[in-house]
C-alpha cells in the first residue's frame, strides 16, 4: 500500500511500530514507578518490555506484509524493506537482551527495573534512526538512543569499572554528537535542506560535488558515525566501554547500536551523497584500517569480553567494506551481515554472561579450558559462535562474508576484498 506521508492519518500508519513502542515504554515507566522493590517486580518489568517489543515487531511485520511504500513529496520518514528488516534486527536484539538480562540482573543483584525502560527507549531511538529520511530525525533519534545507552552502560552503580565505562562513553559520545550536528549544519548550509532525497537533488542540480562546505560537512558526518560504529581510528572508547558495561548491555551495544548506526550511515551516504564520489575512498580507508587494527589487537587479548569487543571492531570493518561498495548488492550484503553478525555476537555475549559468576568481571580465555567437560552444550554453542564469527561454511557468518565478498568483487574492489580475506585469517589465530 502507498502512504502519503503529508497526511496525518497515513503518517500514523507509517510510524506505527515506533508509536507502539513509545506507548509500551511509557506504560512500563508508570508500572516501575510503583513496582520497583523486589526481584518479582524486575521480572514483571522484563515481561512487559518483551510484550512491548513483540507488539512493535508485529507492527513492523504488518507494514512489511502490506508492502508499505511512501508516495508524494519527500518526507521525514522512509518506508522500505531496508527499514523493516533492520528494525527486525534491532527489535530481535533487544528481545534477546531482555531474555539474557533476567538471570543476569538477579545474579548481580541489580534491582533497577528502569533498566528495561531505558532499553525500550534506546530501541525506539534506533528504529527512528533507521527509518529517518531527514538528517534532523536521524540526529534526534541518535541522541535518544545514545542517552539511554549511556545510562545503561553505567547501570551497575556499585561497579567502578561500569562508572568509568559510562563516563567514557558519554564524553566521547557527546563529542561524536557534536561532530555530527556540526556536519549536519554545514550540509544544510551548502544545500539548504536536511531532507536526504532533497540533498541528493540539490547536489546534482547545483553541481555541488566539489563544494568545500558540503565536503567538510560530509567529513564531519563520517567522523560522527565512525565514533558510533567504532571504526578505527575512532574506536578507542569501544574496548573499555564493552569491558566495563554489564555483559547483556555489551552485547546490545555491539549489535543493535552498531546495526542502527550502519543502517543510518548507508541511507545517508546512498540517498544524499551518491553524487559525491569522494566518500568511497574515505570509507575504503576506514574499512581497511578497521579490519587490520581490530583483528590484530583482538589477537593479543586474554579476556573473552575484550577479545569479543575488538572482534566487533573488526566486524565493523567488514561492514564498512559493504558500505564502501556503494551498490545495491552492497546494501543487501550489509543487511544480511548485520543479521548474521547480530545473532552470533548476541549468542557469544550471552554465553559470556552465562559463564561468569556473580561480581566477576573478567572471563579469561584460559579459564574456559575444560568447559567442554563441565558444560558440553555451552562449549558447543561457543564453538559454533566462534566458527561463525570466523565465517566458516555452514554458518550464517560464512554467507554474510560471502555476500560482502561478492558485492566487493562485483564492484571491482579487489584489493578491499583481499584485505578482508587476509584479516579474516588473522582472526583465526
Amino acid at each position: 500500500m502507498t502512504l502519503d506521508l503529508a497526511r496525518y492519518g497515513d503518517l500514523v500508519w507509517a510510524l506505527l511500530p515506533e508509536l507502539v513502542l513509545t506507548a509500551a515504554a511509557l506504560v512500563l515507566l508508570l508500572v516501575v514507578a510503583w513496582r520497583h522493590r523486589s526481584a518479582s517486580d524486575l521480572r514483571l518489568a522484563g515481561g512487559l518490555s518483551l510484550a512491548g517489543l513483540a507488539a512493535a515487531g508485529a507492527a513492523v511485520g504488518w507494514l512489511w506484509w502490506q508492502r508499505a511504500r511512501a508516495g508524494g513529496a519527500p518526507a521525514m520518514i522512509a518506508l522500505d524493506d531496508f527499514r523493516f528488516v533492520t528494525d527486525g534486527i534491532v527489535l530481535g536484539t533487544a528481545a534477546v537482551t531482555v531474555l539474557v538480562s533476567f538471570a543476569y540482573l538477579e545474579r548481580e543483584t541489580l534491582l533497577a527495573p528502569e533498566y528495561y525502560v531505558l532499553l525500550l527507549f534506546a530501541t525506539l531511538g534506533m528504529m527512528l534512526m533507521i527509518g529517518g529520511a531527514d538528517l534532523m530525525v536521524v540526529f534526534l533519534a541518535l541522541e535518544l538512543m545514545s542517552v539511554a545507552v549511556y545510562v545503561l552502560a553505567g547501570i551497575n552503580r556499585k561497579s567502578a569499572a561500569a562508572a568509568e565505562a559510562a563516563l567514557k562513553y558519554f564524553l566521547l559520545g557527546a563529542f561524536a554528537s557534536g561532530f555530527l550536528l556540526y556536519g549536519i549544519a554545514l550540509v544544510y548550509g551548502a544545500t539548504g535542506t536536511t531532507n536526504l532525497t532533497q540533498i541528493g537533488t540539490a547536489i546534482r542540480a547545483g553541481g555541488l560535488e566539489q563544494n568545500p562546505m558540503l565536503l567538510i560537512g560530509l567529513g564531519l558526518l563520517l567522523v560522527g558515525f565512525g565514533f558510533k560504529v567504532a571504526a578505527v581510528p575512532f574506536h578507542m572508547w569501544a574496548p573499555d566501554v564493552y569491558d566495563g558495561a554489564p555483559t547483556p548491555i555489551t552485547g546490545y551495544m555491539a549489535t543493535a547500536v552498531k546495526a542502527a548506526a550502519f543502517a543510518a550511515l548507508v541511507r545517508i551516504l546512498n540517498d544524499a551523497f551518491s553524487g559525491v564520489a569522494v566518500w568511497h575512498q574515505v570509507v575504503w580507508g576506514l574499512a581497511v584500517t578497521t579490519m587490520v587494527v581490530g583483528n590484530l589487537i583482538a589477537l593479543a587479548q586474554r579476556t573473552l569480553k575484550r577479545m569479543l569487543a575488538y572482534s566487533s571492531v573488526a566486524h565493523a570493518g567488514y561492514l564498512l567494506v559493504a558500505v564502501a561498495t556503494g551498490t545495491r548488492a552492497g546494501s543487501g550484503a550489509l543487511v544480511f551481515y548485520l543479521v548474521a553478525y547480530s545473532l552470533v555476537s548476541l549468542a557469544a555475549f550471552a554465553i559470556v554472561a552465562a559463564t561468569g559468576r556473580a561480581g566477576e568481571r573478567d572471563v579469561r580465555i584460559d579459564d574456559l579450558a575444560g568447559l567442554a567437560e563441565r558444560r558440553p552444550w555451552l562449549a558447543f554453542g561457543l564453538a559454533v559462535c566462534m566458527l561463525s564469527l570466523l565465517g566458516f561454511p555452514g554458518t550464517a557468518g560464512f554467507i554474510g562474508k560471502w555476500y560482502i565478498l561478492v558485492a566487493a568483487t562485483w564492484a571491482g574492489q579487489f584489493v578491499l576484498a583481499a584485505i578482508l580475506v587476509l584479516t579474516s585469517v588473522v582472526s583465526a589465530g
Partner: protein
Amino acid sequence: MYEHGVLTALLAWPVVASALVLLGPERWAKHVALAASVVEFAIAVPLWWTFQPVAGMQCVLDLPWIPAWGIRYTVGVDGISLFMVLLTAFLVPLSVLGSYRYITTRQRGFYALLLVLTSGMIGVFVALDLFFFYVMWEVMLIPMYFIIGVWGGERRLYAALKFFVYTFFGSLLMLLAILVLVYLVGRNTGQYSFSYAYLTASLSGRGGLGPAAFWLFGAFFLAFAIKVPLVPFHTWLPDAHVEAPTAGSVLLAGILLKMGTYGFLRFALPFFPAVALHPAIQAGVVGLALVGIVYGGLVAMVQPDFKKLVAYSSVAHLGFVMLGIWALTLQSVQGALLIMISHGISTGALFFLVGMLYERRHSRLIAAFGGIAKVVPLLAAALTLVSLSSIGLPATNGFVGEFLVLIGAFRTYPRATMVATTGVIIAAMYLLPALQRVIYNPLDKGANEQLTDLSARELAVLVPLLVCIVWIGVYPKPILRRTAPAALQLIQSVRLDAAVFRAAR
C-alpha cells in the same frame, strides 16, 4: 540409477551416520562408525566397474542450488578423481578399526567427526562447482582441527592451530580467487557461473585472462601448495602429523595431502595453463619439488621420532608427485596419480604401524626399540614390507609410480630428473637404518621383551593395505587403464592452451 546417485550417497551417508553415532550410546560408537564406513566403502566399490575408461566426467549429477549467484550442485568423477574417492572410502574403515584401542575418551565425538571428515574429503574430490568445492574444502578442515586438537598428543593445541591457520590462509585466498575468476569470466561472457565445466570451456583457447591470471594462479597455488605441502609451506605438516592420533595421521597423509596435488590437476593447471607453463613458474615449481624431495629426505634421515620421519618422507613423496604433474607427459602424470594412490596406502600403513608400536610401548622414539623381530615377527614383517614399498622397491606399489614419474619427467626436465632420482636413494638411506634399529639389532631393552604381536583386529587393518601394496606393485594396469584418458586429455588441453597463448603474444 546407481550412476546418478552414487556420489551424492557417498556425500550424504557419512553425515547421516555421524548423527547415528552421536545419538547412540558411547560404547557402541566405534561399532556403528565401523559399520557405517564399511557401508560407505560398499557404496563406492561398484564405481570401479561402472567407470568407463574414457575422458570426461562420469556419474554426473547437476542440480540448481543458488541460482541467483550461478551456483549449482554439481558432482562427478573422472580418471583423476575416481581413485581418490575410492582411496578415501578404503582408508576410512581401516582408520576406524585402527582407532579401536587408541581412542578411549569421548568416542562418540571422535567417530562422528571422522565421518563428517569423510564427507568433506569425498566432496572435495567430486565437486564440479567452485563454490561447492570451497565449501567442502572448509568442511574437511574443522573435523581435522578437532581431531588433532582434542585427541592429539601433548602439543596438540599448537599443532591444531598451526594446521588450521595455514590451511585457512590458503583457502580464503582461493575463495577470493574463485570470486574474481567468476567475475572476470562473467564480465567477458555475460554469464556469472561457478560451474567448473562452464569456466574451463570459457577459459580454454582464449589465451587466458591477461595479467589477472598471474594473481589468480598465485592464490590457487598458495592454497594447494600449503596443502601438498611444497617446501617453504610445509612447516605445519610435521607438527600436525606427530600430534594427531593415528587415524588423523593416516587420513592427513593418505587423503588430505592429495587434495593439494588434486587441486593443481583439476583447477590450477586447466584454468591458467599459460601461467603454469611460463618458464619462470615452471622452474620455480620444479625447483621447489626437487627441494622437497631432497630436503624432505635429508631431514627425515636425522629424526629420532619415527612418526616425524614418516611425516618428512611424505614431503619427499609429494615432491615426486609435483614433479610428475609439472612435467606434463602421459607417463609422468599417470605416475603422479599412481604415487598419490600408493603413498596413501604405504604411508597410511606406516602410520598405522607406528601407532601400533606406540600403543605397546608409549614411545615413538626409534631408540626405544631394537631387535623386536624376535618378539613380534608379524609386526616386523609388515613393517619391513611397508618400508620397502615406501622406498620404492620393484614389485611394490612405490616403485611403479616413482619409475613412471622419472621416465616421464626425463623427457621434459632431464637435469631435474637426475636430481630427483637421488631421492629414491635417500629414501633407502632414512628408512632402512630406521628399520634396522627398530626391528633388528640386539634386543637390549627389557621393556621390549613383553611386546605382544599383532592381534586379529590389527591384522584386519594391515592385511588389506599389504595386499594392495603387492597388487599395485605387480599389476598396476587396471589403475593405469582408467587414469590414462583423463591424464591425456589434461595434458593436451593444457599444452594447447599454453601454445595458443604464446602464439597470441
